[in-house]
């Protein structure tokens, strides 16, 4: 009887903590929605040119960021998971650094490297006349720097958990390294890869500080949704109402994409496990 009582108390505690936790996360969103509904301009702002241009830019730059992160980050993650060499711990640390770095500093760091007076930016400007600042390319660079580490971290731990024996068996049975990688390592690590990509994309979509510093803020060229939101907040024409309307729009799109992704994965996951 006593244990049943203890069980009940534990259940009650768990539920209370869970509800309090959920309320803490949901209330700020409820506040935004309530405020947006009060304001007569919300819909007008959401359908306006600023919102459309910023959303379009945010979606395509974050998509490019994800593609670049997969192409360049996957081999790096696989290498880090499989290779062992002196100084690997330090290299690991360097890949994690942008997660620690305040985004504003990440932006300054990009300028010191790729800016017009930066380490490689200056010679590139001198020899080719190409500069990165104030272009959509700079937006993508800022996003990759701050968000790719989330993918690489997740992918690395995913590859580490893949059974090495399976890979070796496939290899000794005559499968090429490439085939082994795509047939064994990638499917086995898939949940981790996807989780990493989701984090990476979400971080890229929300990126503000590094973009402001490195890419600047110009509608249609470098003004992504977070920049449009902060511009509205700091300005007089859209103001707080604008910042809230644009934030809700960004949150809605993010929620839609993430939910669609989850559904798509749970379906493909069923296929994979049923092979």
């Amino acid at each position, binding site marked *: 009887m006593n244990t049943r009582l203890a069980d009940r108390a534990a259940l009650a505690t768990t539920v209370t903590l869970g509800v309090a936790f959920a309320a803490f996360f949901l209330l700020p969103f409820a506040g935004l929605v309530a405020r947006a509904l009060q304001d007569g301009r919300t819909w007008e702002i959401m359908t306006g040119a600023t919102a459309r241009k910023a959303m379009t830019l945010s979606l395509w730059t974050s998509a490019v960021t994800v593609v670049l992160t997969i192409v360049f980050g996957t081999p790096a993650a696989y290498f880090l998971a499989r290779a062992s060499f002196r100084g690997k711990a330090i290299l690991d640390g360097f890949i994690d650094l942008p997660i620690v770095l305040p985004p504003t500093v990440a932006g300054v760091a990009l300028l010191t490297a790729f800016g017009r007076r930066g380490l490689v930016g200056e010679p590139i400007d001198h020899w080719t006349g190409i500069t990165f600042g104030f272009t959509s390319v700079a937006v993508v660079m800022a996003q990759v720097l701050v968000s790719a580490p989330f993918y690489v971290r997740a992918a690395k731990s995913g590859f580490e958990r893949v059974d090495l024996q399976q890979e070796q068996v496939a290899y000794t049975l005559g499968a090429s390294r490439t085939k082994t990688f795509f047939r064994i390592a990638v499917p086995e690590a898939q949940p981790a890869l996807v989780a990493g990509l989701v984090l990476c994309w979400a971080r890229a979509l929300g990126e503000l500080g590094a973009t402001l510093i490195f890419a600047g803020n110009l509608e249609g060229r470098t003004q992504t949704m977070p920049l449009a939101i902060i511009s509205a907040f700091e300005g007089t024409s859209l103001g*707080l109402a604008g910042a809230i309307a644009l934030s809700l729009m960004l949150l809605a799109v993010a929620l839609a994409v993430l939910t669609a992704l989850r559904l798509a994965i749970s379906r493909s996951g069923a296929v994979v496990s049923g092979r």
Partner: protein
Amino acid sequence: MTIADPSMRRSRSRLAAAVAMAVTVALAAGCGSGNATPAPSSAGTAGAPTASHPTVVGNITVFAASSLTDAFTEAAKAFHARNPGVAVQFNFASSSALATQINEGAPADVFASADQAQMQVVADRSGVVDPAVFATNVPVVVTPKGSAAVRSFADLAKPGIKLVLAAKDVPIGKYARDVLQRASGAGGIAPDFATKVLANLKSDEANVRAVLAKVQLGEADAGIVYVTDIGAAKDDVNRIEIPAAYNVVAEYPIAVLKPSKAPTAARAFVTFLRSAEGQAILQKYGFQPG
């Protein structure tokens, strides 16, 4: 570290404001003394009141435009020397951000804005007492040291120049655009000057310090900032005066806020800023008398 300074200072002052607000809210809830804010923030915060001449007593929180950071910090020290019973604490940010914070209920006693528009925003929603101009400031063009891309005000219209301005909703961004309009068609300047200059615009920065940083780093060929902002950056930038014929004068209004719980102390600070001593400190930092 001079590179990171402007933006870091800004986020630091924001953090300080957030901490101050959290502490104030906690105190107000805890012991009902809504105005007794301790001093977690930057310089300029005066210590506990001493008992020498307690003519005015109270703790005040001043919300001030970021361009006033250095001048107000020094002014508060001088003010505290004369009014030991008053502790002054600051929240520096862009005027528009401050106006939003005040209208959302932030515990401020005094608002010093970089333009009349934001003062009006606060007056309409929260209420202010006798707003008056206490200082003025003038816009100037800045270019990176060692860059020859822009040598004169007229050069701003040269095709291919990388220009950064504050966004058009930010006071200095609006002043900059006003200057360009006024210059267009004025003696010897083409009527389409403003259009040509704005075609060179590469970024709408969130505030004046961000404009300065882009120029300091050489990322932009030119920007328009307040003359008072150059201070710490004077080794990195050249200054090009805008001819007075079409320059504008930025007016800084200040007012005690209606919801203030320490209106007497707040009024004393405003009066001090408008006194000869207060005006002398402001002029030291490049402001003109209001």
